[in-house]
């Protein structure tokens, strides 16, 4: 590989031939990092159980109240308490994947190993998105199944093939990866653990509660937030035309789901390329 190395007969310098730089090696590397932390499986299992448990509690409370139409009862599978907590945990864990590297300085070791910083950040985003999609899907299907199991005993269950079931199911499954990616992007921008946590809680949970739906501009801001988009997407009934409030559109809410993580990851990639490590 090197003239110098071959000139000095004793050397083995540079003897490992270089294979092509493959993105999937970076994915595998980030996956090793994720699964090698003891906190990962615990956190994921606990949050999944918590979300499913909150769906069970909400359904039982609603069942006790009685006579709602079946389609409305599907809504019980996706209670705010459970999914707001999922937003909090997914956002924080997404942020931690990068913040922990910055706070320990591991990011420098990583960057010397892979000078292509943008590719590292993309790999982190892909692994984070995949992991939280699995968790979100487990939580969402679990929520629905447990809720239906409770309602079936009450002759109020709806099958998973019901037209009003699929959209809430997908929206709830995707909530976790959307928030994890937003957290990751904020983590790259802020690099500081406490600051990142506060900002992601503020952006994902507090911001929408500051705006009401009673006037146009305020409703527009609210509808542009992730948790408001989720609320609209799991809502199975059509808005009352006589209502005084503004309701978000379904395509608009899906667009919010797509734009937040896209902007967060794009910003992260651009920033790591131009900032000193």
């Amino acid at each position, binding site marked *: 590989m090197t003239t*110098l190395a071959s000139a000095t007969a004793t050397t083995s310098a540079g003897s490992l031939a270089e294979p092509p730089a493959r993105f999937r090696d970076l994915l595998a590397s980030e996956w090793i990092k994720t699964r090698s932390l003891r906190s990962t499986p615990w956190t994921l299992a606990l949050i999944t159980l918590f979300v499913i448990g909150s769906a069970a509690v909400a359904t039982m409370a609603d069942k006790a109240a009685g006579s709602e139409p079946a389609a409305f009862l599907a809504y019980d599978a996706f209670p705010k308490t459970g999914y707001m907590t999922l937003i909090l945990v997914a956002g924080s864990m997404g942020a931690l994947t990068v913040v922990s590297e910055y706070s*320990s300085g591991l990011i420098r070791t990583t960057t010397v190993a892979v000078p292509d910083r943008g590719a590292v950040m993309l790999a982190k985003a892909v692994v984070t998105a995949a992991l939280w999609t699995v968790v979100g899907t487990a939580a969402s299907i679990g929520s629905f199944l447990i809720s239906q199991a409770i309602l079936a005993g009450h002759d109020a269950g709806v099958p998973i093939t019901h037209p009003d079931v699929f959209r809430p199911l997908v929206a709830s499954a995707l909530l976790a990866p959307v928030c994890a990616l937003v957290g990751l992007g904020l983590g790259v921008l802020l690099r500081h653990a406490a600051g990142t946590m506060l900002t992601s809680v503020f952006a994902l949970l507090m911001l929408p509660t500051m705006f009401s739906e009673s006037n146009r501009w305020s409703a527009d801001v609210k509808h542009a937030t992730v948790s408001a988009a989720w609320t609209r997407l799991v809502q199975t009934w059509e808005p009352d035309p006589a209502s005084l409030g503004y309701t978000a559109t379904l395509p608009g809410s899906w667009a919010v789901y797509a734009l937040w993580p896209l902007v967060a990851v794009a910003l992260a990639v651009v920033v790591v390329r131009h900032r000193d490590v």
Partner: protein
Amino acid sequence: MTGRGPPGSVVHVIEVNELTKRYGAKTAVDQLSFTVRPGQVTGFLGPNGAGKSTTLRMILGLEEPTGGAATVSGVPFRGHPRGLRHVGALLDAGQVHGGRTATAHLSALARSNGISRRRVDEVLHEVGLADAANRRIGGFSLGMKQRLGVATALLGDPPVLMFDEPVNGMDPEGVLWMRRLFRRLAAEGRTVFLSSHLMSEMENTADQLVVIGRGRLIAAESVRDFAARSTGLGVVVGTRQAAELTAVLTAAGASVEPEGSAGAEKLSVTGLPADRIAALAFEHRILFDELTTRTASLEEAFMELTADSVEYQAGQTR
């Protein structure tokens, strides 16, 4: 001098050219130029805050220079999509996640560069961490973390290696092991660049020195040449006839300073070698009971030179 040799070949030198880094009004590295060559251990010396770590980070592309450039094997390091096969670096042993095992930490790095899992076991064995491979890094001593950092640097079997203060926190046995490792890596034809503020360590390990102070180059030369710069070089003579000897030596062109206490007086002589002093004393029938040539330590040379640089710099900023 250049990173590119004959066509198709690469010489694994680190080249730093007019490198400058400013943080706001503070200049951390000031138009620094030097070359680090293969087959030798090159020490990178300077007092704390001299800009050593900043320079290493710029060579590794972690920080963008304000001016100038640094190349490794003829190209900027940042241009490589994967780095471990080109340069191995230990910047700070603390740059690990305490929750991972040594194996997991190295496996993730190896995998990102398409390096086999077997190589991870090899380097862990090589640095003496085979028994701790599956323990979490959080429980490691600083010395063990340094060894893990060395394992990280060796992972890609690179032709160029850079270590920032590698012997910090090592026990004497570990220091000895590291010294041998650096010598061996250089003997294998690799470029070994080693920063330290421990002069004594350099005296035993390095062939060449790059000395900086306040971000500026003070010296770039062999260890022997550097030590010879010290003005402390001279001969110590112990005699009961101090006054007579002083007169004789001064007449012969030496400069003489009295040392020691009355009754057991010693003279510090510079400007004459020991054999000339002995001959003059014999000619004038002066009895001496001690004659020692003082070799300047690297430490003294370093202190002297960096002190100069600090004064010079302070004068400049005014």
